């Protein structure tokens, strides 16, 4: 069952912040975040485990809310290089292959 991502697309000015959400109707074991630029391979950002704490990666961080079965990706002081499509991948059971969401297209303008 595919997770839902919101928003579908967002346009920012350089230096602005953004939040991308990934939610599921089923209990999640883990959430993975990837960024894909046009015509390129998805690149790993971070993994969040059920019961784990918020993770960070430079100015990009994420949280995992077990009650809501939702993960949020926070992009702070966005840079032009942040542009791309962000996918969450959800794992419903330990060791199960995960399911990617439809993606959120982020455009950062100068």
């Amino acid at each position: 069952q595919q997770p839902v991502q919101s928003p579908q697309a967002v346009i920012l000015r350089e230096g602005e912040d953004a939040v991308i959400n990934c939610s599921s109707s089923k209990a999640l074991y883990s959430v993975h975040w990837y960024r894909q630029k046009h015509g390129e391979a998805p690149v790993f950002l971070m993994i969040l485990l059920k019961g784990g704490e918020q993770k960070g990666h430079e100015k990009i961080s994420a949280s995992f809310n077990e009650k809501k079965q939702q993960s949020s990706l926070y992009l702070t002081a966005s840079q032009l290089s942040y542009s791309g499509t962000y996918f969450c991948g959800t794992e419903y059971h330990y060791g199960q292959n995960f399911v990617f969401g439809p993606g959120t297209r982020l455009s950062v303008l100068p």
Partner: protein
Amino acid sequence: GAGVSQSPRYKVAKRGQDVALRCDPISGHVSLFWYQQALGQGPEFLTYFQNEAQLDKSGLPSDRFFAERPEGSVSTLKIQRTQQEDSAVYLCASSTERQGAPPYEQYFGPGTRLTVT
């Protein structure tokens, strides 16, 4: 090697032709995954290998799709009698960890864009 490589990068096939897509994972990576990505969509799981064993092929859309990894390194995804709906980008990813271990990072290749005319 530097990363996961895939070949060819682009493939045009006439409907009904067979195609073979190759994936060279990062050396030493145990796990290998194939995904299909339609335009504007997220990658969809096709199949998973742990070394040479194909542990999950639940995502293969039909019996026209076949994947192998005979020596536990290079993998080939074969599509027989291609149809227009097979047009997509086929992504390969590899990982150091075994499935079932603590969650792991997947390293993706650049993909093969297949167009069936």
